[in-house]
């Protein structure tokens, strides 16, 4: 060291220039660059390795399993890199090393212990070699569902479904052990389709539970269940249910082909599938019946329909459907036929009210007040004199308020929804009238139209009715009654033009060639008259009563 610096207090960088902050920072940046480069090299090597593995692997597979368990473990780890929920448990089966791979949260670990670990670790001596994979599966393991897997994609998919993979040194195949267990919602009461009489259980988000709910209601071997995996990434299970000897010829093939043709990365909701099944995607009317009631599905299956279940979705889809199906409720079949028929007629009337009542109000008030009795016409004129807006604007204002209330109530938690209903219905409803923004009669009209929508058994159908209220209102304001009648005719033409799997969307409604089906359409005849299945669905076997002794 320099003598002049010996007893002096100096900055470190003065003594050692290489330790200055600038230099250190420079070096750090260089180091970061190197690290980055090494990462790039690593990923490039990984890609090359992957490609090399893929080149040697069969077509469609990312790699091929080897006899070496360490190599296989590396391959699985590589495929599931950064998946910390995947667990690896090493142990010995006799002489050989073994590895159990499972996803925590999707697998029943206690079941794995009982049916795999206890069986394999206790039964073979340490010096004894293991036999072939089938011997292990058939003689040693006590798990109910064990399959031999060769393809890596199959193994990874099984693993992510909740199965466990068992890898054993010296064997290139592996075992997929079904020990699925995950948190799920219990079967509970139907929230959106509650009935007064009749069963209360409803579907949940688990596909197997939903299929079991249907199976529990029928012991018919003709009920077929086909399961497909849809969604290139989510690999969601989708089940197709039908009664083989009833469903119309060609219908299952068509639906199956449609399902298999769906090319989508994810299937989260049943609606994701629904949109691929319908032909007119801008049509507001539902062309598939979504229900959470197993009894409705079973009834539909025995009328010759097809049902589609999507894993993780609590609603099942039924098709083909007609307008009548959307207007029927399970309660119709638990009530006396005469009462049920009356209620059905009321529903059809409600549908008309839901679409046309505000439009009729606007056109009568604006163009044809003479159609009203004098007393009523005068009182309406008096009410309207207090409000500054034209009838159409008033109606739109009230309609807008109603839509906002409905949306708010649907989105809010149940406890707050009641409060919001009170605020909306009573406070704002009364206030807008008192503030002379709208007249009281219009509030009644819009409220009645809103209530009519709620009386629809199908929520989506009700939404479609809400949608058509707007063009009806506009037509009424422009062309009065003439406009309303023309709009209703155009709507009829539109409904008549709709097809679901080549069947008319209006079903047997006013179709004299399907007069046999009228027994369970607008009216509901007693059960003993419903001797045959609906002709409109073209079932193979039409006999319902008196077919077999």
């Amino acid at each position, binding site marked *: 060291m320099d003598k002049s610096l010996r007893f002096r207090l100096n900055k470190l960088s003065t003594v050692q220039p290489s330790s200055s902050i600038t230099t250190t920072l420079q070096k750090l940046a260089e180091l970061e660059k190197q690290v980055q480069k090494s990462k790039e090299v690593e990923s490039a090597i990984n890609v090359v390795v992957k490609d090399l593995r893929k080149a040697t692997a069969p077509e469609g597979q990312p790699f091929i399993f080897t006899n070496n368990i360490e190599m296989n473990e590396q391959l699985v780890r590589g495929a599931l890199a950064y998946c910390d929920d995947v667990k690896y448990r090493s142990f010995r089966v006799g002489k050989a090393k073994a590895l159990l791979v499972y996803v925590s949260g999707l697998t029943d670990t206690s079941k794995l212990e009982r049916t795999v670990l206890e069986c394999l670790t206790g039964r073979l001596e340490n010096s004894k070699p293991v036999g072939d994979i089938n011997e292990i599966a058939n003689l040693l393991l006590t798990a109910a569902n064990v399959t031999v897997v060769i393809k890596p994609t199959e193994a990874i998919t099984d693993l992510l479904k909740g199965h466990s993979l068992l890898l054993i040194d010296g064997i290139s195949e592996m075992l997929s052990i079904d020990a699925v267990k995950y948190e799920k919602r219990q079967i509970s009461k139907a929230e959106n389709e509650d009935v007064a009489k009749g069963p209360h259980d409803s579907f949940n988000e688990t596909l197997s539970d939903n299929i079991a709910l249907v199976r529990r209601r029928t012991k018919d071997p003709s009920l077929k269940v086909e399961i497909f995996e849809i969604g290139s990434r989510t690999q969601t299970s989708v089940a197709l249910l039908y009664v083989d000897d009833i469903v119309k010829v060609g219908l299952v093939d068509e639906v199956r082909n449609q399902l298999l043709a769906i090319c989508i990365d994810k299937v989260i909701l049943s609606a994701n599938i629904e949109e691929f099944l319908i032909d007119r995607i801008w049509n507001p009317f539902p062309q598939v019946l979504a229900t959470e009631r197993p009894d409705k599905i079973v009834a539909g299956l025995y009328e010759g329909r097809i049902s589609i279940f999507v894993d993780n979705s609590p609603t099942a889809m039924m098709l083909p459907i007609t307008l009548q199906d959307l207007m029927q409720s399970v309660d119709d079949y638990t009530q006396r036929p005469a009462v049920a028929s009356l209620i059905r007629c009321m529903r059809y009337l409600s549908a008309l009210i839901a679409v046309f009542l505000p439009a009729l109000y606007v056109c009568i008030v604006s163009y044809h007040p003479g159609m009203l009795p004098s007393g009523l016409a005068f009182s309406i004129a008096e009410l309207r004199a207090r409000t500054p807006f034209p009838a159409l604007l008033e109606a739109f204002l009230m309609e807008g308020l109603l839509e906002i209330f409905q949306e708010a109530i649907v989105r809010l938690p149940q406890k707050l929804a009641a409060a919001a209903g009170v605020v909306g219905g009573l406070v704002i409803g009364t206030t807008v009238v008192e503030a002379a923004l709208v007249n009281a009669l219009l509030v009644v009209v819009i409220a009645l139209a809103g209530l009519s929508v709620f009386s629809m058994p199908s929520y989506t159908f009700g939404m479609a009715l809400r949608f058509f209220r707007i063009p009806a209102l506009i037509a009424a304001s422009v062309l009065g*009654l003439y406009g309303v009648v023309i709009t209703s005719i155009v709507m009829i033409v539109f409904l008549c033009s709709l097809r679901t799997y080549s069947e008319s969307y209006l079903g047997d409604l006013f179709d004299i060639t399907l007069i046999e089906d009228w027994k369970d359409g607008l009216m509901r005849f007693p059960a003993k008259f419903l001797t045959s299945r609906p002709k409109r669905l073209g079932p193979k076997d039409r006999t319902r009563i008196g077919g077999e002794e």
Partner: protein
Amino acid sequence: MENLERKGKMSPWQLGIISTSGLLTARLLSATTNVVIYSEQFLWLSSALAGVFFYSAAYLMIRLAEQFPEETIGEYIPRLVGKKFGTIIFLVFITVLLVNIINCTIALTTLSSIFLFDRTPHEFLVIVLLLAVVYCAMQNWGTILRVIQILIFALPMLYIFYSLIWLNFEPLNLLPLWPDNFIGILQGVAYHTDYYAGYESLLVLLPLANRGEISFARTVGWGFLVITLIYVFGGIVLIGSITAKTVELIHEPVIYGMKSVELPGTFIERLENYMIIFFIPVTYISMALSYFVVAEGCRKYLKYNDHRIFIPVFLPLIFLVSSFVDTPQRQAVFQHFSMFIALFFSFVIIPILLFLVWRKKGSDQQCEVE
């Protein structure tokens, strides 16, 4: 998908309903005045005879079409009379139907502009109605069949309102019961063209019907019978309520008759408005059906795959003529033209064609025997 194939065809009964449902339109409102000028209080008798008269024309058309099953008039006419005459006859057929659409448009929009919208431009009402008709005619036959079967329910409703005129019924207005003006009654029959226009569509619709055990002549005959009964009772009610003299003097006698009806103690007032509401779908059926038949006829004649190509072709023509014929004078001239061309087609061309078919058939059989 066997059901789909069936939807494109109709049963003989459906044919009966469809072909006769197109007869009743708002045209009868103004046509009544023209008929009463000749038949006076025997409007009902004239209507009954007209039913037989026009059914005979429809029957001849059915017989003609039965000689060429699965073919429309545009397909077999050139074979029968040669290409040149075939084209002329086909054009006359298309004109008859287009004139029917135009007449319906005029009748309905005039009615609406007088009783519902006195300040709305006539052209606006015309275009709205025509666009709605075009939308229906653009659909396939299965859809149109369903539309007609639903809208036909407006017919009984219309008749319910119409029958309210009974409340003002005076039997004395129908006297004398024994007709002494037979010539007038027969003249009135010819003026019933507006009452029974549209059955010409049978010449295109018959191949769309399944041949069953019941003959088409029978089902169409039942349809004619129902319509004739409606007209006969309608005539009795109208003359009995507002007298033949009043009907002669006013332009829309049925609406006038409805205006005079009062239902005390009920909510319903201005019954004529309700009646117009039900006239719209009833007339719409006839318009959509005729429009489809025109397009389908052209498709078959020109051997196209889709009838929809021909729908927009005729729209400007119908719109322009309907908008132009907006005064009572022009309407009267146009009505006369439509009456003569319809009668000429039904009672001159069709019998000649049928005669030619029978003669050809006879000579063919003779050749076979020889």
